[in-house]
């Protein structure tokens, strides 16, 4: 294979990394073939609804029907081909490569799952996008505080407390907006506690975050047992934010019903992602934040108030996590259940790492996790021979795989995790 053509170009060193990735990709292709390709009968069709049923807003487009076996074989072939290419020649952008093969795997899984029946693809995409909201908000909280070098893993505690505060106040006042504001306030308070512990008292940041998680879970369980369980009508029945349809954009096929028919918290999240991105990279305050995160000493000598910046960032992060918590109750089911966040805070942290501490990247990553989350919901409807518990593991396993693959190459802000000592 190595001939004069290769000698002219820069010879890629045959690194162990290339070998591992190449083998993994080829292996994935073979896996697709074995797991999915051989388990379907010839001639089966899978059809995907691309227009939500009964939705009059959108321009209807016909359903997509795919022949199952050829499609799976094709996807397997693509994966194997790319893997072989990687082994032989090496491809520069391994991230994109892995992404493409991952897409092949997921797509072939979906096709295998819908063999012989139909699936509401648009509905599933909508669920993914909506369910990624709390993960995205947790990721935003992580981004904003870690950009100023404060690790905040107390997201579960903040989100749980925010969720309870939101539903209780919304039910009491019959006003969802007040619920949202109370959740933001609660998040700010917990963020402030974390900030004080970490900045003023120099508690280890991971320990402080874990303590907030413990207290958040304990406090919400306690208050739920004391008050909410016995006063459901007065404290735990708030209703949810209604879906708001954006008139013209919703007509776009596929994207329209997925993105533009959701509730306030969803739109708020998108707005916050954009705002955070602009503020972090295009404003002086964002520059100061990032300076404090990379080299607080240098920032300090230039007159930036390191402590104040960190306080502000962590408190704003807490507010974002509070909104994330509000999603669970007033943005989703309208009541509080114990420990309802179920690990979304930590998945948000993984999304933040996957997105390389960039708001837009973190949002894209949370979409992936949201998709994994919605997958297990949809898959339980289609009766496939995988037990539902294993499907529910999907988001967590995806998180671990992502972390394993990405962390080494993703660089956190340089001063992340270390308390600042003003000498």
């Amino acid at each position, binding site marked *: 294979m190595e001939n004069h053509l290769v000698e002219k170009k820069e010879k890629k060193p045959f690194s162990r990394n290339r070998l591992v990735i190449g083998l993994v990709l080829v292996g994935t292709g073979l896996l697709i073939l074995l797991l999915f390709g051989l388990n379907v009968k010839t001639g089966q069709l899978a059809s995907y609804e691309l227009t939500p049923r009964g939705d009059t807003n959108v321009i209807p487009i016909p359903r997509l029907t795919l022949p199952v076996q050829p499609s799976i074989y094709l996807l397997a072939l693509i994966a194997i081909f790319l893997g072989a290419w990687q082994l032989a020649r090496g491809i520069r952008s391994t991230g994109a490569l892995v992404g493409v093969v991952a897409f092949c795997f997921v797509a072939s899984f979906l096709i295998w799952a819908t063999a012989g029946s139909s699936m509401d693809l648009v509905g599933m995409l909508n669920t993914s996008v909506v369910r990624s909201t709390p993960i995205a908000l947790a990721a935003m909280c992580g981004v904003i505080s870690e950009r100023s070098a404060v690790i905040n893993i107390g997201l579960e505690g903040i989100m749980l407390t925010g969720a309870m505060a939101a539903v209780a106040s919304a039910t009491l006042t019959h006003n969802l907006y007040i619920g949202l504001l109370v959740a933001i306030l609660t998040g700010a308070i917990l963020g402030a506690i974390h900030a004080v512990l970490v900045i003023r008292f120099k508690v280890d940041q991971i320990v402080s975050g874990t303590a907030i998680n413990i207290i958040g879970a304990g406090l919400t369980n306690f208050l739920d047992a004391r008050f909410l369980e016995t006063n459901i009508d007065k404290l735990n029945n708030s209703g949810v934010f209604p879906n708001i349809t954006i008139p013209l954009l919703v007509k776009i096929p596929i994207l329209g019903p997925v993105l533009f028919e959701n509730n306030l918290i969803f739109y708020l999240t998108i707005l916050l992602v954009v705002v955070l991105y602009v503020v972090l990279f295009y404003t002086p305050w964002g520059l100061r934040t990032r300076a404090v995160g990379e080299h607080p000493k240098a920032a300090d000598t230039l007159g930036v108030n390191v402590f104040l910046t960190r306080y502000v960032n962590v408190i704003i992060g807490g507010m974002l996590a509070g909104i994330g918590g509000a999603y669970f109750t007033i943005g989703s089911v309208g009541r509080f259940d114990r420990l309802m966040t179920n690990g979304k805070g930590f998945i948000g942290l993984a999304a933040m790492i996957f997105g390389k501490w960039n708001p837009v990247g973190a949002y894209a990553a949370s979409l992936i996790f949201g998709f994994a989350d919605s997958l297990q919901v949809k898959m339980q409807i289609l009766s496939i021979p995988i037990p539902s518990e294993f499907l529910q593991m999907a988001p967590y396993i995806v*998180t671990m795989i992502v972390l394993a693959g990405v962390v080494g190459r993703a660089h956190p802000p340089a001063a992340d995790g270390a308390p600042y000592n003003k000498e």
Partner: protein
Amino acid sequence: MDRNTTEMQGVQTPNPKQASKSGNRRGAGGKVFQTLFIPVLSIFTGLVFGAIVIVATDTTVITAYGNFFHAPGVALRDTWNVIALAYGSLFNGAFGNPAAIVQAFQVYFATGDQKALLTAIYPFTESLATITPYILAGLAVAVGFKCGLFNIGAEGQFGIGALCSAFVGYSIKGLPWFIHLPLALLAGALGGAIWGAIPGYLKAVTGAHEVVNTIMMNYISFLLGDWLLNGPMKAPGYRPLTPVIQDSAMLPRFFPPPLRFNWGFILALAMAVLVYWFLFKTTMGMEIRAVGANPDGARYAGMNIVRNFVLAMTLSGALAGLAGATQVLGIDHWVGQNYSSGYGFDSIAIALLGQSHPFGVVLAAGLWGFLRSGATNMQSMAGVPLDVISIIQGLVVIFVAAPAVIRWIYRIRLARSEAIVLTRGWGK
């Protein structure tokens, strides 16, 4: 947490005011005093905060304070009653009723009748039985801390260990107890070890932070347990639980039922001694501690960081798995859903409170076992939800991890300010 780091920091940032005040009075006694004083004060403060939470959410007290200006005495009396009832039932649940115990002993020595005695010491033995898994789980997290790793996965490792040992316990029949019991314990430890080794390996090779990975493994273990309990490992019947284990796999108990105090407690204490010996008297243990104190220095000295991370996490997981095993084999004899609930975060608090030292962990686990054991009684007698213990726990974690907070609350001036850095950032 680490003495060396503290002293080094003290040298680097000399503080003339404090050095002259406290430096001269320091001696060997000062360190012991400080080591015990902060945890004790932390627990006390935590209990005080807990009392505030209990009182502030009690409807009787709230209505009484509504009438404060008309009848202040009622409000104060109600406050005191609520606290007394809550913490009184906590004490009774943990230790038993002292008067009843004394009386029962008198009866026993007079007539030889055991029944009253057994009833009287039941709460105390229940506490000891509760302490057993806490010692082991606390050791697990402590070993992790010694290597600079934050093992939040103790809950998942506990659950997997319980399932593995239960499986060996009920599926193998006809073995004598001196083979079956160690085998079941070993199975539990092995299951937990694997569950801990995976995040350890990922951390060592890819740098992925063990906090997130162990938490993910927790969720995976819960779901795996759910599937097993509803499927392959399900006992005949409706409820999702395993069959009862064979008699030959049960940890022997000291007293007749319903007392559940068993040899698991002795095993836990033995493991504490073993861990102490391993960490402080062997080369491997010293390497683990060196890597925890300063990974760069350790690497420079030629120690294999990867191997030490994996070793520490595997040991940690094995201990947590053993905790699950002793709980199954000694107390419940079967595994149900949410079996490991609560042990994860409890063990973190215990490890922190015990300053990651095996003997400290035993003391802290003792405290925690008594608290938890009494809390069940507090819930049934005083109507205070169990979760107040979680709140106290979280507060104690904060107070222990930041002695500065305790000092600030009580305006104490002890040694120079220590920043206890237990773990590093993401993927370093």
